[in-house]
């Protein structure tokens, strides 16, 4: 079991294993995304009050859910880097930040598009929307801090501290709806008790959430592979890989 842990610290091993994971995970992700989108957009009933406009939920909610989870992934990777000084965790943290920022941005944009027909306005300063905006700022802050350091090892550690500090913000994001409830509806899916969303709409939504998690993982692995290659550009294994035409 511990050899597995030690292997995690080896860039060529990680590059190889992530390649073989991606080989089956990427097609599976694309299949799930396509199924979920077709199911959600074409084969579910329109909403009683919102008509067809509610269908953006199949992008909006998964993006928002995974954007939040992505922050945990980033902060956790940062903590692993701080505690065990594991370089690969630093690579993971560095790679997770832009993906999380992109997902947060997607959640905000789709929320604005959804808000126009539903609430009659593109943007409201509602608690949950504002929290997502803060989350975007947190992601961008981590990216900006990373770029500001010349010493990349220090950059990774500093970003790890910052993302752990930002994690204090995450419970506030979750709780914000209860605290400053205004326009945004409270969570419809509950693990305990009855969900307030119809099963015919819930299942495609759950599929899309799963697909977005898989998409996040794929993007993370691909980003990590690119980061590994650029960091290890001068080593033997990268040279061999380049000479063999990229096949690992």
């Amino acid at each position, binding site marked *: 079991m511990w050899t597995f842990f030690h292997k995690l610290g080896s860039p060529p091993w990680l590059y190889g294993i992530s390649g073989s994971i991606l080989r089956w995970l990427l097609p599976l992700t694309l299949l799930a995304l396509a199924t979920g989108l077709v199911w959600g957009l074409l084969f579910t009933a329109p909403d009683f009050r919102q008509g067809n406009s509610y269908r953006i939920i199949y992008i909006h909610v998964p993006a928002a859910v995974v954007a939040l989870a992505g922050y945990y992934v980033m902060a956790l990777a940062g903590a692993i880097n701080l505690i065990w000084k594991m370089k690969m965790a630093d690579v993971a943290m560095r790679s997770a930040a832009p993906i999380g920022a992109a997902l947060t941005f997607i959640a905000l944009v789709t929320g604005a598009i959804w808000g126009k027909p539903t609430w009659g306005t593109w943007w409201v300063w509602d608690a949950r929307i504002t929290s997502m905006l803060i989350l975007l700022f947190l992601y961008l802050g981590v990216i900006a801090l990373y770029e500001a350091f010349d010493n990349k090892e220090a950059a990774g550690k500093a970003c790890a*501290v910052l993302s*752990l*500090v930002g994690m*204090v913000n995450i419970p506030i994001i979750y709780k914000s709806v209860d605290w400053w409830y205004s326009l945004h509806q409270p969570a419809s899916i509950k693990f305990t008790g009855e969900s307030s969303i119809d099963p015919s709409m819930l299942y495609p939504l759950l599929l899309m959430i799963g697909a977005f998690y898989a998409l996040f993982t794929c993007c993370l692995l691909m980003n990590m592979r690119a980061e590994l290659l650029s960091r290890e550009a001068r080593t033997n294994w990268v040279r061999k890989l380049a000479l063999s035409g990229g096949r690992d």
Partner: protein
Amino acid sequence: MSAPGPLAFCLRLLRRQLILAVRRPIEIGNPLLFFAMVVALFPLGLGPAPDQLASFAPGILWIIALLSNLLTSDAVFRSDFDDGSLEQLLLSPQPLYLSVLAYIAAHWLITGLLLALVSPLFALMLNLPAGAIGSLMASLLLGTAVLSLLGCIGAALTVGLKRGGMLISLLILPLYMPVLIFGSAAVKAAVIGAPAGPYLALLGAMLCLAIALAPLAIAAGLRISIDA
């Protein structure tokens, strides 16, 4: 001479920071001057109608307090980092947690506390109802302490960087937002005659959390900055 105990050391450090600040009074005056000037900007930008100013006053006062805190927090560790005394502090056997608290306490005493004490004057200039001044001061007293703690995290992470000024705002402003929400909500509640207590209690809870955790992050940040 034997080494002082942790608490005595912490108090000495606090005294040193305060003496340094008092010897350069302009540094203490600058945030207050900034506060006064930005207060003057709002009637110029929003129009001088007293009713309108009164309704915006809680938010205006809190945002200015937040900005002046942000602008001063950049300098907390800067000079000690430049002359090497920060590195000596990290090498010393004293617990960094307490030393960091001394820095933060000094920063709060010369910015947050003074701002809270002079805020009634600016509140009157912005036509804030007199009944809300008590909760304005209370919320500023609690809130600026949280802001100082959070601001020092940004200061510790960016102290080694040449161009930290803009960056620290990007890092720290998102963390300031919950404080701003509850701080201004406390004042707004007092304006309409609702109890401000719950908001002040939440600010107090944030302060407890920040005192417990922020020095850890600051200490880690300082170590990273010194190593880099």
